[in-house]
């Protein structure tokens, strides 16, 4: 008997989760724009509600188009399953709200997307969930911050905006040693650049708005479970291992084993918080995923050209890209990100705020906006936008200065991008410091 072979990444990106539509033969994923689904009879209805049969009841809980996206991302990541959400932030919230109660604590990297920092540092505090932020550069920082009431360790695969590379094997080892799961935001890397579950992470999520969708047309998130964390053995998660009055006294772990986390997240989190994804959004993100394996190499290739250009430019003080030997996580990136360190990075300009303003306003191909991971190249000034709520001290901890500019490299001709940056840097130089 021949040895078994899994389908390749490219094949899964195009097919996982979907067979041609049984009713019409449609090859593309149909957009099931329906809120609800007709029951065959009352017995069938009762069976669906009581989880005795698989199927859809109401599109806040599940929808056939959204389910294709969920299964496809789970397949690409090597997870047991996934839940698509209204945004990446909704995915992070769903993970936390499923696992943590008031009085619990998170240990998080301090190198985070500003929105995640807001959620953890401010908003969740109102609901009794505290967070200790630590520098991800030294994994032992996570260990030192773990308390008795800690229930989650969290970081970004590539920290925002300094591109700190999270040492997932080391941090996962620390988390597991304390009976805790490691959740990572994998938005910047996508499964094409890194498979966090293979490195030891337990849960991950994407802002699918970014590279997964890839075209800047839809907001969405996807939360994926590896199914590898043993909630029962940990003993710290009665949310999953004890009867839950809010869902017919279900013990989610006993009921479904490896699917316990996703079962509660869907049956409680989507039911009660309601941050579900619309089927049209799922369709748009699926269109993006179908070319993820073609886009990501091009994103990375062009990024390398732009990084090399900037690193040699006299107006540029420093470039923070892990493939450069000057980046503090260079060696780690070589180990964990052999296909490339993504297409979003920051650099520090000389010349202060006036020069920065002249630079941004002189760009013609790059678009000045608050997003990353688009097919089009993007630029932003974090200190005045995505990270504007952070104190100067926190900004400094996250490696941001007033002259920091973040670029997201798109799919235009790389030479055009370099020319655009060259022109804008000359304009900045004319303004001077």
């Amino acid at each position, binding site marked *: 008997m021949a*040895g078994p072979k899994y389908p390749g990444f490219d094949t*899964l990106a195009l097919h996982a989760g979907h067979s041609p539509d049984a009713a019409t033969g449609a090859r593309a994923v149909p957009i099931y724009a329906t809120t609800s689904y007709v029951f065959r009879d009352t017995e069938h209805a009762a069976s669906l509600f009581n989880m005795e049969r698989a199927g859809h009841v109401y599109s806040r809980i599940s929808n056939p188009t959204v389910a294709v996206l969920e299964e496809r991302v789970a*397949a690409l990541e090597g997870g*047991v*399953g996934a839940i698509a959400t209204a945004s990446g932030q909704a995915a992070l919230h769903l993970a936390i709200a499923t696992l943590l109660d008031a009085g619990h604590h998170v240990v998080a990297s301090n190198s985070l997307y500003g929105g995640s920092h807001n959620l953890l540092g401010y908003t969740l505090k109102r609901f009794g969930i505290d967070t200790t932020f630590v520098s991800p550069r030294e994994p032992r920082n996570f260990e030192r911050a773990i308390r008795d009431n800690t229930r989650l360790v969290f970081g970004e695969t590539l920290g925002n905006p300094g591109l700190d590379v999270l040492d997932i094997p080391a941090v996962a080892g620390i988390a597991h040693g304390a009976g805790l799961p490691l959740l990572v935001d994998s938005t910047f890397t996508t499964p094409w650049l890194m498979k966090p579950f293979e490195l030891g992470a337990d849960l991950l999520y994407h802002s699918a708005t970014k590279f997964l969708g890839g075209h800047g047309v839809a907001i969405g998130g996807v939360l994926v479970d590896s199914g*590898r964390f043993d909630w*029962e053995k940990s003993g710290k998660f009665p949310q999953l291992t004890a009867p839950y009055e809010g869902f017919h006294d279900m013990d989610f772990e*006993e009921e479904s084993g*490896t699917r316990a986390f996703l079962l509660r997240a869907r049956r409680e989190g989507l039911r009660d918080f309601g941050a579900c994804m619309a089927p049209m959004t799922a369709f748009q993100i699926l269109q993006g995923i179908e070319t993820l394996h073609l886009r990501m190499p091009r994103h990375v290739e062009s990024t390398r050209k732009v990084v090399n250009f900037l690193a040699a430019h006299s107006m540029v003080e420093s470039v923070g890209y892990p493939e450069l030997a000057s980046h503090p996580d260079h060696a780690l990136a070589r180990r964990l990100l052999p296909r490339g360190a993504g297409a979003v990075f920051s650099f520090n300009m000389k010349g202060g705020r006036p020069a920065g303003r002249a630079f941004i306003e002189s760009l013609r191909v790059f678009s000045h906006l608050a997003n990353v991971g688009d097919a089009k190249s993007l630029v932003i000034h974090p200190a005045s936008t995505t990270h504007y709520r952070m104190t100067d001290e926190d900004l400094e901890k996250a490696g941001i200065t007033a002259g920091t500019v973040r670029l997201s490299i798109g799919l235009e001709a790389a030479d055009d991008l370099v020319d655009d940056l060259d022109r804008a840097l000359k304009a900045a130089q004319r303004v001077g410091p």
Partner: protein
Amino acid sequence: MVEGRRAFVYTAAHDSGPAKPSVVFVHGAGLDHSWFGLQSRYFGYHGRNVLAVDLPGHGRSEGPPLESVGRIADWIVALLDAANIARASLVGHSLGALVALECAARYPERVERIALLGVAFPMKVSDAFLEAARTNEQAAYDMDTIWGHAPRVPLGGNPNPGMWMYGDTLARLARLAPGVLYTSLKACNDYAAGLESAAKVKCRALILIGRRDMMTSPKSADALATAIAGGQAVHIACSGHSLMAEAPDAVLDALIDFLG
């Protein structure tokens, strides 16, 4: 406790009662009670005593794994004794199907009906698979996952929304203690009494066959159904070996028809 060791059974959150008919669900090699999640839950909520077992060494039941189909059949009856259940229908998948068959042959007075899913006789395991299970478990988990589903599974949709069948199977297998899969596969491979036991079965038997099964051939399953006097074969066109996950509604409907 069964035979002096801690054993886990899922009961669908219902207490066992003498007035209710009983159904025991027996999973296959390397898996656990939740492999029958939807089906066992249905019967638990529809007037049956449900005992979905974790076989020794699997899931939450204490090891070590038992080394032969006959020993597991004896263990199932010891479980019935421990639960004060005189007679039950048995629903088994793969290794669990052989166990149900052997139970019905050895203990006809204890077995009401048997439903055999993903079954064949002989249930030969390839040398490569057995050797991988013995020496290199990840390779064996990969074989189990790929051969354990219909070829369309990785490129098609899961009836259970949002779930990835391959990932789920791999995650379950990753939780096994070393040697459990090998011991269980070897029990399947070594089982030699299939036709003899089939001839002894006096109760009704349902044989549920996935037409795309790459582990237990549909042809061999049909032959086993013929060898059981009260045997009835039902084919599920789209399914591979993991019938409960690949075709959960078709399996449940067939079990409802069969068990009443």
